[in-house]
């Protein structure tokens, strides 16, 4: 079970992070935790893919900015790189790999540290923020991370140091989407719906009508839809269409009521 191709998943995540909506909003990070099975057959959520961006000017409070300056300092940077290298080695990376060496170059920002460290996490059933979310099948929306008493996940401290104030966890049938923002965002059902739709596995295509003999291309069937490789071109189960819907919903992040576009229309 995958969310389409890998590129498709990455595009969706990048989109959430890099493409501001009509209110000029975009998330600071987006992670997809993919459901999988461990060798013993247990369900486990592990890294699917992720995307992040640095906070723009004005996105972080003055205090957070000053605190982060301390982490730019040499010894702290060395510590971060060492941790990343150890994680890389521990989880199967080889020393002479380009990845390992590249991590040593340049500095590692708070946001980057959060994302890179997250790659090594996995959550057994019901454990950790994403694990609990998947298990309960209920979305989680935390608008005030800094002041919240408990940690949404063991990685919370990394998220906080990156200035993240809002964390959203959206369960789907194939994993959990985790989103974060440096702004305090109010709960939005609309956002939750569109995200859930975008990252769920597509509904099964409607069964082709039984007919004899084999259908020739361009032959008009009773549905008047043209087919390519056996799939309806205009089927709402196509990812392209889903992506379009997603964009439309994101445009309405702040206000409007969602009309019932969730039900796939049959043509």
């Amino acid at each position, binding site marked *: 079970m995958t969310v389409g191709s890998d590129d498709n998943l990455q595009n969706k995540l990048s989109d959430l992070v890099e493409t501001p909506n009509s209110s000029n909003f975009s998330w600071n990070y987006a992670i997809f935790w993919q459901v999988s099975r461990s060798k013993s057959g247990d369900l*486990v959520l592990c*890294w699917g893919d992720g995307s992040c961006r640095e906070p723009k000017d004005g996105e972080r409070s003055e205090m957070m900015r000053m605190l982060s300056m301390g982490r730019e300092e040499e010894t702290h940077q060395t510590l971060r790189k060492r941790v990343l290298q150890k994680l890389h*080695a521990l*989880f*199967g990376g*080889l020393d002479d790999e380009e990845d390992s060496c590249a*991590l040593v*170059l340049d500095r590692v920002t708070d946001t980057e540290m959060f994302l890179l460290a997250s790659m090594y996490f996995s959550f057994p059933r019901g454990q950790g923020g994403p694990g609990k979310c998947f298990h309960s099948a209920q979305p989680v929306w935390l608008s005030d991370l800094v002041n919240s008493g408990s940690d949404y996940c063991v990685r919370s401290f990394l998220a906080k140091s990156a200035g993240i104030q809002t964390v959203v966890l959206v369960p789907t049938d194939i994993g959990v989407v985790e989103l974060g923002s440096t702004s305090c965002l109010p709960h939005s059902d609309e956002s939750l719906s569109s995200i859930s739709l975008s990252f769920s596995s597509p509904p099964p295509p409607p069964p082709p009508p039984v007919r004899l003999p084999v259908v020739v291309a361009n032959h008009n069937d009773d549905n008047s839809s043209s087919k390519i490789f056996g799939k309806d071109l205009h089927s709402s189960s196509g990812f392209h269409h889903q992506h379009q819907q997603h964009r439309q919903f994101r445009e309405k992040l702040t206000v409007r009521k969602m009309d019932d576009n969730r039900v796939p229309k049959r043509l």
Partner: protein
Amino acid sequence: QNMSKVTTELDFFGLDKNQTNNAPKPKFKKTLDRRRSFREMQGAISKIDPEIIKSLLASGANRSESSTRSPSVPSTPKEDHPQIPSSPVHVPLSRPSMELVSGTVPMTIFYNGTVSVFQVSPNKAEGILKVAMQTTPEKDKSVEKDLSVIPPTTLRSKLFGKNLEGDLPIARRKSLQRFLEKRKERLVSTCPYFPTSA
């Protein structure tokens, strides 16, 4: 689950089997030494029930030089050890300030998604691996029969590469590669000269 309080600490910055003297080394060199010994550590890895290791170690301790037993070895049942879980053992490791027992190496064991590090003599390590071979379920034939002659990196990639987390380290590697690619592009666009340091 009553195991939430017992944790395993990974030996990230600590034990080095070649630490013969206590003279402070320059920080960076220490990093290199540790990386080398870390790699050597991985020469004795297997997925076996730490309970078996415990009993092996216990039997070994009874036999000989038990007075020099490393503090990081999980103690035998007769000791005053707080609840011993029935499935994967989580062993709180002593801090690196403790003296290392000479002639022992750290042995890392991965079992059912958990990690434990034990301090064992090379002979003991071999013995444990032999037992692992015997207790490994039939279907797991993919593990090499003679682990002792396999170079550490090959063994590591064989064991680590497979599911510690369900067969998807590939996703992580791809993400990492993409991340670094993006980063390179960003660096080149903002600073055409190769950055020397942070």
